């Protein structure tokens, strides 16, 4: 027998909105698990934007030309902005900025584990823009249709800004690939190191991911990890060919029947190790965030003291 009491009016209305492909908005009733699931995903997404500034930030001072330096600065600045859009959207779910930040700083919250890999050469900046931003775009375009209104709107804004990130990265790769033998080798080396971690960005295989099945039901996620990963591989092969660079996968080949590229197995042990903190840069990334937080505190304090003093003197003047 169906337990009628477990379906409240609110639940029915929520289900109907999801069913109708409409958006849930901040003051709507929502199941607590839906809210918590969103808080987790959106804050992780925000943290990824913020921590994602660090690998590229490493090269701002060493960009090869003034043009490249200005571009890289603008890109990293955009990523900070993306973090802010996402934290604000998450705050509409009743979680505070301080809580989210604190969870990141104490190592409780996750962020995209791709950012725990080091940027060893200038070609890495190209590879990140081309591959990492490219993968992020595939994911974020899908999320423009997520069921939570503020998240969907943040994604639309972010997607508009991402396009230049990928193109500037590809342009860097193009210049290197058309350059001297050593430059081309540098580009190939960057592709070799970033390819597999980029495929891991889409998360575990669908069969391994219980979390994402529930997310799909709620339409928080619109396409599965494997679907998105496949889409990324399919679009990237042509781009690598054009550069004259080889994707480091012997199993990569066109499958006429499926209408997609087949590709080799992903090293999920490496993925698990890096997520758990065993990547080359996990400690350095968190340390950099803590340092920024601690060393910036006096600026926040000074601004608040100034604001308080002025609101007092306003009152004095009125009196």
């Amino acid at each position: 027998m169906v337990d009628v009491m477990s379906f409240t009016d609110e639940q029915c209305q929520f289900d109907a909105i999801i069913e109708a492909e409409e958006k849930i908005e901040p003051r709507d009733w929502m199941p607590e698990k839906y809210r918590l699931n969103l808080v987790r995903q959106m804050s992780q997404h925000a943290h990824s934007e913020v921590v994602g500034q660090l690998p590229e930030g490493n090269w701002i001072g060493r960009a090869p030309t003034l043009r490249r330096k200005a571009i890289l600065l603008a890109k990293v600045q955009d990523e900070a902005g993306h973090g802010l859009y996402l934290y604000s959207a998450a705050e509409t779910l009743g979680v505070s900025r301080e809580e989210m930040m604190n969870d990141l700083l104490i190592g409780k919250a996750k962020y995209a584990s791709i950012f725990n890999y080091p940027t060893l050469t200038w070609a890495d900046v190209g590879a990140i823009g081309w591959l990492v931003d490219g993968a992020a775009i595939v994911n974020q375009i899908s999320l423009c249709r997520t069921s939570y209104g503020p998240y969907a709107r943040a994604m639309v804004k972010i997607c508009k800004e991402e396009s230049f990130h990928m193109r500037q990265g590809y342009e860097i790769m193009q210049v290197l690939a058309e350059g001297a033998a050593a430059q081309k080798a540098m580009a190939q080396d960057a592709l070799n190191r970033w390819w597999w971690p980029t495929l891991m960005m889409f998360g575990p295989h669908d069969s391994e991911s219980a979390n994402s099945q529930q997310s799909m039901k709620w339409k928080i996620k619109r396409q599965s990890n494997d679907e998105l990963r496949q889409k990324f591989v399919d679009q990237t092969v042509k781009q690598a060919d054009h550069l004259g660079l080889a994707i480091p996968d012997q199993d990569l080949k066109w499958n006429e029947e499926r209408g997609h590229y087949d590709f080799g197995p992903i090293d999920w042990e490496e993925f698990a190790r890096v997520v758990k903190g065993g990547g080359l840069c996990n400690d350095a990334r968190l340390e950099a965030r803590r340092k920024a937080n601690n060393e910036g505190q006096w600026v926040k304090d000074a601004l608040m003291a100034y604001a308080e003093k002025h609101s007092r003197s306003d009152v004095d003047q009125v009196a």
Partner: protein
Amino acid sequence: MLKGHFPLWEVFVRGRRGLDHKHIGSLHASDADQAMKSARDTYTRRQEGVSIWVVRAEDIHASQFENDASFFDPAEDKVYRHPTFYEVPEELKL
């Protein structure tokens, strides 16, 4: 404020789920509750919205028109923030 004069409120309406609240106009009302009811009657008589925000006009801080040019100037010469700045093959759909 002069006695008997209602304060000014700015009204924002969400047309339907999924859209941002958009500024639609203003009105005078004694308090938030009255402002909300007036906003409903003034701006959503034909189901123009599913959600309304009312904000006291005096709580809105606006950029000054005479300073706008210099205020927004830092973005003017940064053409590289736009995707069209980069020369990459269009057929690759980057």
